[in-house]
């Protein structure tokens, strides 16, 4: 009696009790109907994702020639090489550090913005537009702007610091600061979107719940903790998962801001893949890196689904 309804509620049931009201439909027919709905996605994914992905895996066992064609089969050598290569390990470390900085900070910032923008105030639409506006800035455009802001001597940031009488910071030139700077840029670029999503999630929460909590004397923080966050959990789950995946795949801002430097401190994996493939034309090692990156994201996502979605409350 206790366990069955509880697992059901957890949402991510993998073939436990049938969800009521659904099993009334004949299952076989359902399967083919579902396939029909999924067909467009499937065809496109097969052509544009699965096929290239398999090709990538295939290539990771080869050295490639100038045309990017596999020429010498080397087995696991590419993997062996990148795992012993100081450069790759560094970029792996940088990537993880980057993910650890940008995901929590970005999500929390977006949540904060969404919360203050979810209030019914005059002119709130204006603020919402401002908060989501960075979405409109392309990676290239925003990176260029930040490049200016980070400029060692002329950048607004350093100018501000000197006005405040603080010593200047070598934003993009100091390896420790560089990763922070790239992270800040990334967070800035991504908040707009996360903000929009979270705001949407907030607006979906039944107002009556707050009304009731308010009457019962729950203060803002209490409501946030006990109502907003649990009710927002599907959205947060989504945004965290997506941010994780995106953070692992950051590329554009690195290309423009630091080109992976200084001293490879911002050489995030995808940038490293890009360079390996498009500048160095080493598809083999690039592919191996891509496969490893895929594996990393896969593991993180599986963990996220396994442990994260447990805490999600669907209606």
């Amino acid at each position, binding site marked *: 009696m*206790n366990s069955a*309804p*509880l697992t059901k*509620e957890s949402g991510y049931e993998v073939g436990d009790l049938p969800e009521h009201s659904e099993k009334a439909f004949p299952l076989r027919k359902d399967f083919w109907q579902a396939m029909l709905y999924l067909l467009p996605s499937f065809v496109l994914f097969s052509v544009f994702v699965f096929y290239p992905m398999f090709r990538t895996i295939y290539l990771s066992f080869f050295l490639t020639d100038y045309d990017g064609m596999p020429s010498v089969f080397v087995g696991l050598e590419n993997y062996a090489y990148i795992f012993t290569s100081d450069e790759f390990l560094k970029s792996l470390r940088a990537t993880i550090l980057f993910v650890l900085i940008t995901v929590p900070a970005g999500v929390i910032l977006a949540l904060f913005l969404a919360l203050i923008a979810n209030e019914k105030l005059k002119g709130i639409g204006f603020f919402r537009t401002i908060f989501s506006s960075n979405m409109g800035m392309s990676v290239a455009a925003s990176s260029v702007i930040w490049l200016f802001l980070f400029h060692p001597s002329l950048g607004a940031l350093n100018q501000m610091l000197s006005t405040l009488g603080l010593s200047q910071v070598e934003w993009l030139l100091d390896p420790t600061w560089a990763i922070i700077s790239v992270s800040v840029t990334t967070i800035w670029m991504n908040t707009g979107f996360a903000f929009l999503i979270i705001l949407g999630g907030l607006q979906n929460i*039944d107002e*009556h*719940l707050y*009304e*009731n*909590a*308010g*009457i*019962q*004397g*729950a*203060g803002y923080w*209490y409501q946030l903790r*006990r*109502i907003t966050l*649990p*009710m927002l*959990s599907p959205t947060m789950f989504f945004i965290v998962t997506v941010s994780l995946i995106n953070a692992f795949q950051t590329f554009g801002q690195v290309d423009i801001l630091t080109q992976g430097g200084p001293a490879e401190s911002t050489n995030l994996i995808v940038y490293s893949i890009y360079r390996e493939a498009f500048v160095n034309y080493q598809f083999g090692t690039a592919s191996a890196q891509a496969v490893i990156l895929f594996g990393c994201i896969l593991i993180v996502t599986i963990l996220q689904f396994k442990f994260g979605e447990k805490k999600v*409350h669907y*209606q």
Partner: protein
Amino acid sequence: MKQVKLDGLYKTYDGTTPVLSNVNATIEAGEFFVLVGPSGCGKSTLLRMIAGLEETNGGAITIGNKRADQLMPSERDLSMVFQNYALYPHLTVFDNIVFGLHVKKVPKEERKRRGRETAEMLGLTDYLKRKPRQLSGGQRQRVALARAIVDESPVCLMDEPLSNLDAKLRAHMRAEIKQIQRRLGLTIIYVTHDQVEAMTMGDRIMVLNKGVTQQIGTPLEIYNQPANPFVATFIGSPPMNIAEGEIKDHKLFIEGLGPIPLPNGGAIDQTHVYAGIRPEAVRFVHDPVREKGPGLIEVKNVEVLGNETVLMFTAAGRDWYARWSGQWPVKPGDRIPVMIDYADVALFDKASEKSIKHGQSPDVAAEISREEVLL
């Protein structure tokens, strides 16, 4: 124990149509105040304004001795049962119930005890671990009720809290709520559509129509001395029969019925009136020959309710009802002799709709003295 004072409350949703206008009432500390009125008349809106969930567009609300209309809901120290329950879908029944205690930092042990006690009282003990989704409608409603009760806030607002319960459970709940209210001295403002609830639970009743107060009074006042035809027809089921009437020659004429003679000295200034007769005052004439003022009605519809029978007939172009104890073997089409006593008739001025004369209250004092009852 807190008084709630409503002072010229005004509310509109769209800026033009008023949903409530000039609502005045002082609900005494510890009073059980019932709010009734037709669907959409503004009852929920009024409760929500008291709770602070809707802003007031005019007037003032005082709770305790504090002006409250600018306070946040959480500062008003009250509890509420929502018409649509508003349960937290992500919390179990138990957590839903003790949510407020949690907020108020009631110690865990006490929280547990009070939560369990309340659940016990509302027959929810078996469902404490479930989520609201897995409950029946009545169970959900009880959770909403439990959540408000467990709080023991001095003021409690209840919006049709028993509408989805069966008669038996409802009777039980009525008693429980009254008992808690008395024990804790709660001030309760209670919206209901149930006549029995309104009549038995309320210290006073307020009748609203289209956002305008019609009458405030004790249940018997409302029943016996309705201020206008609206109240007269709204309270009592089946409703009081109402028709236009004319007073002429010491007689009250109502179309479709025989003239009803006025007693001596019962002269009335107005000639054009609304006459109201409660269904139970339309009496069956056992011996039409001997008894005075008989009329003959043609039964249009019969409802046998187990211990009573409601007959429908037409008078003055309207549906009229007669209600008699027992199960009567009457069929539509039957013609039955009835009589109406002028003493039972309530009269309202036709123009102002104000009450001119109340019907005689159907108390048995006339027949049986209090002394006779007691042994």
